[in-house]
Structure formats: C-alpha cells, structure tokens
C-alpha cells in the first residue's frame, strides 16, 4: 500500500516541521543566551559565557545592557507582577465561583443572558479592557477630589488588578461551571435534611467538592495575570510589571539578557511540565494498584494473584536524557578546546570591538545631528512618526537593527 506509506511519511514530515516551527525559535533563543555577543546570535559565536545571567555589560554607546541578576527594573517588575497576580487571584476565584453557582440557580430565560454576559470579557480585546478601566477610574478620581479615591484611581497596580480581574474571572467562571455540572445536588438536600443550615451546606459540602476547581482556577488566574500584556500596558500607568519591562527592553535595547530571561522561564516551564507528568503517572499507578487490590478482594481467587516480583523496567525517556547529556558533554569539550569560554575569550572579543567603536561613535554623532535638523512635528497620521515611537533605529546600526 504505497499510497498509505507515502501518506505516513508525509504526515510524519509535516508533524516534524510543525514541531520544529514550534520549538525551533525557543531553542535558538535559549542558545543565544549563552553567547557573549551583544546581539543575540548563534553565528558568529563569540564566547560561551554566563554574563547575560549575571552582570551584563556596558555597551560602547553608553547604554547599559544589564544581565538578569543586575537588572533592577526587572526585579521591580517581577515583584509588581507577583503582587498583581495575587490580587487578581483573590478577586477572580470568588467571583468566578459565585457566578457559576448562581448560574445553576437561575431559571432558563435569565440563564442565557447571565451566561452571555459572563462570557463577554473574553471577546473584548485586551487593550479595550485596559483602556476602559483607566478611563473610567480617571474620571472617578477626578470627581472624587483629593484623598484615597483619587489616589487609587490613578494607581497602576490597582487599575491593573481590576482590569485583569474583568476577564480572568471569566476563565475561573468556566472552570467552576464545568466542575459544578457533575455535582450531585441530592447531597445538598441530604445535608439540609440532616439539619445543616444553608451556610453549613455551602461550607461543608459544596466547597470541599469545588476544591479542585478552586485550585486549578487559582493557578490559571495566576498564570494568566502574570503573563498578560495587552491589558496591563494600558492600565499600569507609571508602574512596571515583568511583561512591560520586557516589552520596553525589546523596544529599546535588544540584548541577550532577554534570551537569558526566556531561557530561565523555559527551564521553569519544562521542570513544571515534567513534575506534572511525573505526578500524574504516579497517581495513575496508585489508582491502578488500588483497583487491582479491590478486584482481587472481590474475586478472592488465587488465579488473579499478581507476581510481586516484577522486573524493573527502564523508562524509554532515559535514553533521551542520556543522549542530551552526551551531546552537552561533547559540546562543552569543543568549547573548551576552541578557547571559546572564559575571561580570556571575552577580553579578546572586547578588544576587537573597541577598535570598531571609535568609528561607530563618529557615525552616531552624525546621525544625531541630522535627526535634530529635520525636526519632528507633532502631527498625526504621517509615516515618520512611527519610527520615533519605537526607538531610533540609528542606535542599532551595526548592532543588529535595520536602516530605513
């Protein structure tokens, strides 16, 4: 069946390309984090170094390209992001839960309307939600005069929490709705019949049942808040979150420090994924053992006795890990051999660049003068504007940008 065979091959190829497309950029980005060159690249490979994780360097145009450990903005942004995420979780999970519970209690005509309204935020573009929040609270702050209202209304963290809660509550809502669908309502009735008050029914029966949903919606809310950009960039005003810091960095100074950050995040994600898979497999195994034991008890015959002595089977993934390890060792040996690692290498590269630098400085001066003489008008709708907004491209000449 040749057509089937070619189909298989074609499919396999397609899938490989697909996943290459998916993971390729990330892998490449991770590798660039270790190249000491100032613009993230693989070729030419300057030196293997950890500098972008640590102190970074001062570029010759005076711009400070900080490494992860040294970047203060990044740290502030990270903490702000965490704080906001916590705030969002605290609000969204109860809101989503309340909405889901009430959904099950209203009758059908009201139900569709209620459901549609709850879903709406997901259909709004994130920027719209951010803008509307800022705009509304600005007005409230103006009307509210001096005092806490006006302070809150202009506080980026407060606004971002509100804006994100708007649509993240919908995610929580959906998770709770799914969980509630399989809830056996006679349990509530039984509890009532046994003398529990309404509040007790809620706390002792419903909440324990919803615990998994509470957990997963909290996690989803946290992650969604943490990585949000569209809404945050409008509502954050004068503060910074991790994502806005990254965005600023990307616009103003591309450096492998961002690759380093990405690499750290990728590693954390992979670890989380591996842990998750590990726990899941363990739970599955536990369940299988339990059900086997139960079956054994019920049948109680010798025929089903399992052998206690099972050979220890190696998981196939061991080979993959070994392979990667081997490659890493080989690569490392290469690097050491070619003297691509360590202070020596970096010093050599710096010297080479210093001679380049003097020429570049002159070029920059010229460009800066020409730009000033042209001037920029504050008009709108003209093409020139767009360049100014996203960073002077001249700054990147020969450092990895493009001419117009």
């Amino acid at each position, binding site marked *: 069946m040749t057509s089937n065979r070619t189909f298989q091959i074609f499919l396999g190829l397609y899938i490989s390309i697909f996943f290459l497309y998916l993971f390729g950029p990330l892998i490449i980005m991770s590798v660039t984090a270790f190249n000491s060159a100032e613009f993230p690249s693989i070729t030419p490979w300057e030196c293997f170094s950890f500098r972008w994780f640590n102190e970074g360097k001062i570029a010759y145009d005076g711009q400070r390209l900080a490494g992860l450990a040294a970047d203060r903005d990044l740290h502030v942004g990270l903490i702000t992001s965490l704080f906001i995420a916590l705030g969002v979780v605290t609000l969204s999970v109860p809101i989503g839960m309340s909405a889901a519970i009430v959904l099950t209690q209203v009758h059908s005509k009201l139900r569709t309307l209620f459901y549609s309204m709850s879903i709406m935020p997901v259909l709004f573009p994130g920027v719209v939600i951010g803008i509307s929040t800022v705009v509304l609270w600005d007005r409230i702050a103006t009307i509210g005069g001096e005092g806490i209202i006006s302070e809150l209304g202009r506080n980026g963290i407060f606004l971002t929490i509100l804006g994100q809660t708007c649509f993240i509550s919908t995610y929580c809502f959906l998770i709770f709705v799914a969980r509630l669908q399989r809830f056996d309502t006679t349990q509530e*009735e*039984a509890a009532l019949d046994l003398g529990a*008050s309404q509040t007790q029914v809620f706390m002792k029966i419903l909440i324990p049942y919803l615990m998994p949903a509470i957990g997963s919606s909290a996690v989803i809310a946290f992650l969604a808040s943490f990585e949000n950009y569209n809404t945050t960039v409008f509502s954050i005003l004068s503060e910074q979150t991790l994502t806005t810091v990254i965005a600023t960095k990307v616009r103003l100074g591309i450096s492998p420090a961002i690759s380093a950050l990405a690499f750290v995040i990728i590693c954390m994600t992979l670890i989380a994924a591996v842990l998750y898979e590990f726990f899941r497999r363990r739970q599955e195994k536990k369940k299988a053992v339990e059900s086997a034991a139960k079956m054994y008890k019920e049948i109680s015959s010798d025929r089903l006795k399992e052998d206690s002595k099972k050979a220890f089977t190696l998981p196939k993934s061991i080979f993959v890990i070994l392979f990667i390890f081997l490659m890493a060792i080989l690569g490392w040996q290469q690097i050491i051999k070619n003297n691509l690692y360590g202070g020596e290498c970096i010093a050599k590269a710096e010297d080479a660049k210093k001679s380049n630098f003097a020429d570049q400085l002159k070029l920059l001066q010229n460009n800066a003068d020409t730009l000033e003489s042209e001037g920029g008008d504050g008009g709108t709708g003209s093409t020139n504007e767009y360049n100014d907004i996203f960073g002077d491209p001249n700054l990147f000449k020969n450092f990895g940008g493009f001419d117009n």
Partner: protein
Amino acid sequence: MSADVELQGVSIAFGDFYAAKNVNVKIEAGEFFSFLGPSGCGKTTLLRAVSGFLEPSEGKVLIGGQNMSGIGPNKRPTSLIFQNLALFPLMSVADNIAFSLEVRGVSKQARRKRADELLDLVALNGQGDKKVHELSGGQKQRVAIARALAVEPEVLLLDEPLSALDLKLRQKMRTELRAIQQRVGITFIYITHDQGEALTMSDRVGVMNDGQLEQVGSCYEVYQAPSTPFVATFVGENNAFSGKVEKVSKGIAQVNVDGTSFSGSIGKTTVGDPHPVGVGDDVMIFVRPESLSLAKGTKAPKNKFSADIETIEFEGNLKNIYLKSSKNKSIRFSVPSVFDTSELIPGSTIELSFSAESAIVLPSGPLALD
C-alpha cells in the same frame, strides 16, 4: 421519641399538573407505613412534602400535631433516605454518620461515640474509617440508615431505598429494616413500587395511583379486601370480570358476566362501609388466582366457567396456569407446585370454579396496568 404524621387534604400542583390530589391520611407514631404505587403516582412528591423540600399547594402537613407549613427540611424532626443514598463521597463513613451531629456543634468525642453506636446498630462495626466508595451496595444502604438515625428523628422517610439492590440482598435488607424499626421504635414512612416489599415490612399500606390515595389499610386488608379495582389488580394478581349487577342480597351480589352469572361479596369502601351497588350497575368481580379451583364433583362451588389451557409456568413455589375463557378473556390460575398438574395439558379445556366469599365485587374503575 416518635411522632405521628398527618396529611390533611394535601394537594401538590406543578402548574396545571397535580402530582398529589387531596391526600388524607394519619400515620401513627411508631408505625411502619408504606406508600405503594406505580412510578409517577405521586409518592415521592408526598415524601418530599413531608420532609420539607416542597410546600403543599393545598392542605396541611402535621408532624406530632404541629403544622409544618413554612418550616424548612433542616428544622423538621424528619430524616430522609434518598433513592441514590446521597452519601457524602469526600467524607469517611463515620463522618457521614456523625454529620448531623457535626452541624449541631457536638464535640468530636461525642460524635465518634455516637457513630460507633450506630455502626453497631446497623452491623458495620469497625468500618468507620473507610471511604464511602470502598463499600458494597448493601453496606452503603446501612450507612445511609445510620446517618439518618444519628439525631434520633421522630420520623424516618425512605425513598425506594432497596431498588438498586439485587434480589437476595433486598430480601435480607427488608428483614433488617423492619428489625431496626422495631428496635428504634420511630415512625417509618416507606415508599416503593414493589408490593412484596410493602406487604412484608409494613404495618399499614397506602396504595396510590395517579396522585390519589386509593386505599389505606393493613396488608391483609389491602390484599383480601381491596376497595377499588386499581388496588385489587395492583396488589397481587387478580382475575377481573366485568358485568352488570342482577341481584343484591345480604352483601352478596349476583353479576351477569357475558351471559354467565357469578356471585361475589360486595367490597368495602375506604371508610369501611360496603359499596352501594345496585341492580344494573357496572361492576367488576375479582377472583385471586389462588382462589380458583378445579370444578370436580357435585359439591362444587356455585361459580363455574370453562376455559382453555394456554401455558403452564413454574415459578418455584407456585405453578401458574394461563387460560383463555370462552369469551377470550385471559385467566390466571395458581396452585402450589406440589400440586399434581399432569392432567392439565395445554390446549385442553377444563372447568374452574370459585366461591362467592373469595370473590369481590367492586364498582368499575381503572385497573393497574401490567
């Protein structure tokens, strides 16, 4: 402590549909009372009204003489055992049982003690720490009962609790339930569609059909002296002949069934008086299968008819002989299986007879569907 339950003129309507119509019954304290009827007859609805999940549209529910109107299920002195048991899956057996104490703020020690007592009562000693899903069907049943009894309710309501169990287990649980009730002494209100259950366990039975309470009485009364054709055909098997009354005298009515005259005793109404049947009325005459006998010899009872044997069925302790009368009516004739039926060959015609005392005449009405 047990209480009596009284339903006065209770009707429950859902829009235009009446699930229960004008139900009047007084269930005595300490009694094992069953509501018996086919699916959809309204018995579950009545139970929910007594337990407080529904308010009757008309009439009153009184428990221990007190009007329960407006009082929620958590405030009534009743406990309900649901059809699906509704045990709490996230709690252990002991926690399930002690739940009603927990919500009343009883201390952990006292709760544990009471749970152990109840586990002992339902013969589940030592199973307290297990999770609900680890138990078998019968064990879950007993946990449900123990849970319901924990706060010593005055009335225990049971919604077809045995329907999910297999036959042998069901029979065992019937005896157990009865024993528990007598030991604990509280009022049991039990609903079921299985008349065998109702008859073996109850002190009294209320037969329901289509929202109406047709008859209330002891098991014996309901079986031997049904008040309506529905009760006559729902409880146990019964042969029904329709006809017109020819003569009435001294509690015996002579009925013309398709040309033949049969005599039967006039049945009693729910309040105990004989039905007022008169000459010319449309009536039905009911004869139990076991009340039929082969017409042999001269000293035969008065009512005689002939029928063709169709099949003979062996049901363990009984043999059921299915016949067709000359007027094409299905007849069922039952004899103990030790009875020698070698002469009864399918296809042959035999003569059957019954006594007037064993037959009941009732005004025509709807029968129970098979």
